[in-house]
């Protein structure tokens, strides 16, 4: 009885020690990379970082088309960014290879490229430079709205991707530890039943 009591104390002590360690080392960071890409005009901007916010610098970025053919490759700069001109009007698959087995990807569908590209070409042609009058067609109004929405929503999109790149939350960590102890209970139960039988 005495012995069992001791080992329970030991288990509890280690458990609380581990919780102390995690809470002392916020922000929690770890090993996962993400890449985030967006189309602006005829250029695609990408941003790469490790979960927890550290930039993935000098990492290899590969761009593939729909058929899996490599279109171009490049390296991220010291802010984890890499940008390139749209190589081809197709679904793009942008793959980040941060070395040591870290890899992430981001897909840009053809429609997104078309929309962004289309707007910027019209803008360059000076179509919106005339004073806006009632003669604007439905299509033009839609494009104007799209363009300004894109601009307004960019920070929101960025915020969402940033929240995705945050490290695991305390709930998840405690949940995981809980799972392990639950599994321990199951294992003990089955071993114990085997013993009695």
């Amino acid at each position, binding site marked *: 009885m005495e012995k069992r009591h*001791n*080992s329970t104390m*030991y*288990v509890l002590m*280690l*458990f609380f020690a*581990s919780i102390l*360690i*995690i809470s002392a*080392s916020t922000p*929690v*960071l*770890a*090993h*996962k*990379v993400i890449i985030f890409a967006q189309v602006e005009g005829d250029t695609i901007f990408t941003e790469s970082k*490790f979960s*927890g916010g*550290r930039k993935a610098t000098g990492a290899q970025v590969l761009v593939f088309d729909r058929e899996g053919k490599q279109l171009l490759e490049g390296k991220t700069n010291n802010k984890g960014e890499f940008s390139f001109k749209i190589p081809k009007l197709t679904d793009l698959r942008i793959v980040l290879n941060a*070395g*040591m*087995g*870290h*890899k*992430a*990807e981001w897909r840009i569908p053809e429609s997104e490229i078309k929309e962004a590209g289309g707007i910027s070409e019209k803008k360059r042609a000076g179509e919106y430079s005339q004073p806006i009058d009632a003669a604007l067609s439905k299509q033009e109004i839609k494009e104007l709205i799209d363009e300004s929405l894109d601009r307004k929503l960019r920070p929101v999109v960025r915020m969402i991707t940033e929240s995705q790149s945050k*490290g*695991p939350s305390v709930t*998840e*960590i405690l*949940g*995981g*530890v809980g*799972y*392990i*102890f639950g*599994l*321990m209970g199951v*294992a*003990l139960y089955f*071993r*114990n039943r085997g*013993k009695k039988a």
Partner: protein
Amino acid sequence: MHISEGVLSAPVLITGAVLAAAGISVGLKKMDYEKIPQVAVLSSAFFVASLIHVPIGPSSVHLILNGINGLLLGWMSFPSILVALALQAILFQFGGITVLGINTMNMALPGVICYYLLRRLVNREKKLISLTAAFACGLLSVFFSGSLVAVSLLFTEQSFMSVAKLIVVAHLPVMIIEGIITLFCVAFLHRVKPELLGGIYGKAT
């Protein structure tokens, strides 16, 4: 050092999974009633260790704690690490389900190697020898893990030596920190619960 999904080719994944399964079955056989709580505690320690980021060096590295895990558990380290990695994959999206086998293999085998290499030295009465061995255990297990990761990446990245060097250099601070942590764990256990270090398979010191 978690290898992400989609990096490795199928033969590497399958080899890793088969080897890990072998290790796990040996571990499960050795795991008796008294050992289950210990396996669970070390499993959860491993589970949270990878959240502790070491902000030194060129890359994003974290604690691993596979040395102390292997030292205390021997082959039971395999099931212990499998559970922790599976939960990390599900809850944190570190690694992934398809790479679970090879990751378990890369993390658990070094601990088992250290168990056989250093166990006897850790159990010595002389403090200096015991603690040095503990430090070496923490350091070497990370080093071996790095080498195993480099071997796994052998078929996808260009050259073994450059990858291995990169991983080992990135993990130098972690190796030293893990050595120190293992040292303190062993010193603590020597004082508080020496039987944990001693006869894991029923044999005392």
